[in-house]
């Protein structure tokens, strides 16, 4: 072949890229623009807007301590830390453009504009938004800091961010370190535009079954509101201090705190006492749920007198809860995955979540490519279950009909 005959490729010498361009390509290959997708757990880096949030703090002394601190100081001295290099020494990147206003979204909050941009790239119709650094607030030794900052964060989110678009929703932060304040929060934020329910951070040290929290569950039950436990790692917690890699602390931390909260919840009969509260467990993957089903049922058969409020096996309560999908943990054998989902209560219990822009985010393609689920089940997990749970209206379609055929997953895999 003559060299002059070869077309010239467009060359990008520094290999720079649009972070989510590949996401758009992957969702288009599968026609996911035609499938309603609700992302039940995504995040913003709210500390980038800390001065805006601080303005909503009621307590003048707490407000003053944030106002007088630099961001670095606030992150290190005023908020509890969260050890661990998420990037594997810089190998994993995050999208630096995500917080920039784009095109005709210049008039809305830049965090909302960035989020809507990434949602479009990933074919997500609705996003349920949670914070990032404030997920550690539940371990703050000063309960008033959790209460004050959480209230300010909720107000800022509702008034300044969620107003940007009905596609952006949240489950408002509940400061469980103060049950009375939590009830006030439910009164203030239930029914606020964009608020679909409430979220408790799972990493904390207040046993949720204690009588002082009953008023919180009662307030949610009265309003039939869902309650999510958002998990996380806490490398500084005593048992995890023995783990020398973030891989280990990350792998065990999320399911550990989810298991701890779920166990207290079930063993103390909270689902029996508050049958209108839908419980959701977020960001702990799946494999821990079948483990807990087996473990708690076996223990309960032997020691049911220690859990006298239960009228059914623990698994029966667990299989009525909801679990967000990220990080989805694929197994080699699809039959194993099918069994795992059955042990969780079936596809109706799963809510797709991206966790974007965190470093182990999942595209909706992760669910769409599961070979052992019917298309109906995949659609339910991606959006149908969440739309029913939260009463979300059918999303406006972003693209005209004409779905692309299903594509093979990326790469090749040889056995």
């Amino acid at each position: 072949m003559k060299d002059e005959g070869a077309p010239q490729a467009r060359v990008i010498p520094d290999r720079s890229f649009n972070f989510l361009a590949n996401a758009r390509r992957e969702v288009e290959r599968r026609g996911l623009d035609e499938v309603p997708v609700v992302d039940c757990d995504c995040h913003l880096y709210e500390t980038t807007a800390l001065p805006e949030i601080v303005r909503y703090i009621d307590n003048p002394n707490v407000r003053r301590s944030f106002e007088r601190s630099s961001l670095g100081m606030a992150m290190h001295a005023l908020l509890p830390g969260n050890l661990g290099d998420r990037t594997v020494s810089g190998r994993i990147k995050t999208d630096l453009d995500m917080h920039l206003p784009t095109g005709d979204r210049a008039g809305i909050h830049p965090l909302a504009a960035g989020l809507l941009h990434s949602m479009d790239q990933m074919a997500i119709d609705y996003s349920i938004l949670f914070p990032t650094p404030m997920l550690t607030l539940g371990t703050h030794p000063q309960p008033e800091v959790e209460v004050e900052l959480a209230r300010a964060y909720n107000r800022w989110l509702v008034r300044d961010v969620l107003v940007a678009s009905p596609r952006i929703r949240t489950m408002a932060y509940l400061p469980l370190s103060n049950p009375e304040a939590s009830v006030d929060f439910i009164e203030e934020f239930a029914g606020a535009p964009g608020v679909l329910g409430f979220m408790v951070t799972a990493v904390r040290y207040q046993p949720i079954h204690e009588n002082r929290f009953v008023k919180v569950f009662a307030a949610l039950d009265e309003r039939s509101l869902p309650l999510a436990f958002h998990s996380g790692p806490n490398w500084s917690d005593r048992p995890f201090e023995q783990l020398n890699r973030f891989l280990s602390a990350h792998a065990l931390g999320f399911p550990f705190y989810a298991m701890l909260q779920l166990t207290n919840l079930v063993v103390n009969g909270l689902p029996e006492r508050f049958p209108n509260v839908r419980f959701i467990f977020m960001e702990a993957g799946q494999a821990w749920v079948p483990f807990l089903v087996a473990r708690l049922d076996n223990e309960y058969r032997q020691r049911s007198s220690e859990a006298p409020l239960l009228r059914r096996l623990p698994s029966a309560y667990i299989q009525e809860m909801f679990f967000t999908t990220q990080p989805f943990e694929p197994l080699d054998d699809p039959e194993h995955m099918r069994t795992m989902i059955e042990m969780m209560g079936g596809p109706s219990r799963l809510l797709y979540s991206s966790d974007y822009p965190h470093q182990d985010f999942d595209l909706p393609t992760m669910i769409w490519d599961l070979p052992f689920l019917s298309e109906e089940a995949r659609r339910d997990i991606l959006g149908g279950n969440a739309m029913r749970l939260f009463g979300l209206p059918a999303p406006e379609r972003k693209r005209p009909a004409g779905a692309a055929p299903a594509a093979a997953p990326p790469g090749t895999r040889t056995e």
Partner: protein
Amino acid sequence: MSVEYRVGPLAEIPEGGGVLAVAGEVEVGVFRVNGELRAYENRCCHQGGPVCTGEIVGRYEAVLNPDRTVAGERFADDQVRIACPWHGWEYDLATGACVADPRFRLRRFEVVVREGQVYVRV
């Protein structure tokens, strides 16, 4: 049927580095590893991420003492890897195999040099 695209002068692809080339509909990373050229689709086996835009790093290894205690860890120079920027899957740039699970391999394209010019066939 494959089409050959000209990427550019070989001199512009540094040893241990690479460029991203958009060849028709396909994005291809063209790398030079130990003097040899490799071309892979910019689509990670995990979730389709832009793997060819990732950090190029050496293999990281643990060194054991004769008594099997761990002496330390270091970068080794026997394998050049690329780490996908989305979630960190690492691939051997010489073979395209995922280092943690070599059943996964990047899609590889033929790459040739003629008269100092690099071409990929996609």
